[in-house]
């Protein structure tokens, strides 16, 4: 293991971007992403990297600036959170349809209202269907690693899609953790300069973002869907390459003491660490409990997920967002629809929890697990709501 430094994860995210030889950053500050924006601006201002930092007046502009710069062949980065991501929404599906490899860090935070600045996943879930690759980091080291990986994945000729890396707001962004940075030489070896498929240039005029008549729109959507679905192959390949170089291994679905477990807890993002402590405690008392962590949310890694939950009797899906008036949390809803045809599928218990920065402790995970095991059928409920 290389030298580790103590650093706030938001600052580390900006430092990771600085290693990636970016050309343009267009970032509008918003809590809890502000430290990424501020530190990114510092790095550019101090001349540490040869990049343009565009000071924009809103997130709609920051993502639009990224789209334009990316179309011109630049390697671009932006970061946002919550309401900022909501304001970007209009542009998100356009970027994926234009196949622009924009990389974004999203410091997950609840969406208004009521106004709340703390962590949950309600900001990313409404953007779920925008055609972006969507990943979750669990800790600070993963934020660094996955930020660097994201540029390589997004720009790969077999992918050419934007990526949003979800970094739990405060729970991750404001934590000071011991972190290991790859050297500039290592990153240069891992991440080649961007060679765009095509770029806007007066000498070679092309049209991007074209109009589609009804005769072709559905075909274009099929292309987008196929591109996103196929990206998993390249993502896995690049993660393997990273593992070989740095010894830290990444998979679409990761498991912890899950083999043969009767009950499985499924999490995304930073709560996986708390859940793993809960699993340890329950295992010590003889319970057959394991943990499944979904790193990749879009494209949904269903084959890997099926393999991870095979044989389990109860699957407890932890959702930090809710589809109001729908079938439950977005993660559970997706998984349940995939499992619908499986004869030996586990019972799926869905908890909506950890909303708007509500702490979910080890004891909470144990309590939820005990409760879930006793349930007779699929359910979804809010956990920890005072009655």
């Amino acid at each position: 293991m290389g030298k580790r430094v103590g650093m706030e994860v938001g600052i580390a995210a900006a430092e990771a971007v600085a290693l990636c030889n970016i050309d343009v950053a267009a970032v509008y500050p918003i809590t809890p992403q502000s430290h990424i924006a501020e530190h990114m601006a510092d790095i550019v201002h101090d001349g540490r990297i040869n990049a343009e930092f565009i000071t924009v007046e809103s997130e709609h502009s920051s993502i639009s600036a990224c789209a334009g710069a990316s179309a011109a062949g630049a390697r671009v980065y932006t970061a946002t959170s919550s309401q900022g991501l909501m304001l970007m929404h209009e542009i998100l599906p356009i970027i994926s349809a234009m196949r622009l490899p924009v990389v974004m860090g999203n410091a997950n935070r609840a969406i208004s209202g009521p106004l709340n600045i703390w962590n949950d996943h309600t900001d990313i879930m409404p953007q779920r269907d925008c055609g972006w690759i969507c990943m979750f980091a669990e800790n600070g080291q993963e934020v660094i690693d996955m930020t660097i990986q994201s540029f390589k994945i997004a720009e790969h000729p077999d992918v050419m899609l934007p990526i949003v890396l979800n970094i739990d707001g405060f729970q991750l962004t404001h934590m000071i953790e011991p972190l290991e940075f790859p050297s500039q030489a290592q990153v240069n070896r891992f991440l080649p300069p961007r060679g765009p498929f095509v770029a806007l240039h007066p000498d070679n005029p092309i049209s991007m973002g074209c109009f589609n008549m009804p005769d072709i729109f559905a075909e274009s959507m099929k292309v987008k869907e196929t591109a996103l679905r196929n990206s998993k192959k390249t993502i896995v390949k690049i993660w393997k390459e990273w593992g070989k170089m740095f010894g830290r291994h990444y998979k679409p679905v990761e498991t912890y003491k899950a083999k043969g477990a009767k009950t499985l807890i499924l999490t995304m993002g930073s709560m996986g660490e708390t859940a793993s402590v809960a699993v340890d405690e329950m295992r010590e008392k003889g319970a057959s409990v394991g943990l499944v962590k979904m790193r990749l949310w879009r494209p949904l890694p269903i084959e890997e997920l099926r393999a991870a939950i095979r044989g389990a009797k109860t699957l407890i899906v932890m959702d930090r967002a809710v589809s109001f008036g729908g079938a439950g949390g977005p993660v559970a809803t997706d998984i349940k629809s995939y499992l619908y045809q499986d004869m030996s599928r586990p019972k799926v218990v869905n908890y909506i929890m950890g909303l708007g920065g509500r702490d979910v402790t080890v004891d909470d995970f144990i309590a939820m697990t005990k409760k879930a095991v006793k349930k007779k059928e699929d359910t979804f409920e809010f956990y920890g709501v005072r009655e």
Partner: protein
Amino acid sequence: MKKKKAVSKKWPEKWQEINPGCMVFTPGNASALHTGSWRAQRPVLDTQKCIKCGLCYIFCPEGCIAEDSEGFFKANLDYCKGCGICAHECWPEAIVMVEEEE
């Protein structure tokens, strides 16, 4: 009224043939799409009434009206969508809209 010529292959046949991001690599190919086929009415110019003021040319949202060698402003029917703005703006009433169908 004769039928409009069908434009040759407008779209890729299969989804697999679509360029990434629907990028178009042939600049200016929008002119191959004859939007005049959308038209329900066509503008007809009475050169006896026309005073060659060019208001129709200024107002045409399609930019399909151009001055000919005699100084008259005439719509290119390959691209004219038949919106009728030229006829509406023409104060000497030299332009009238005529139904396309027989």
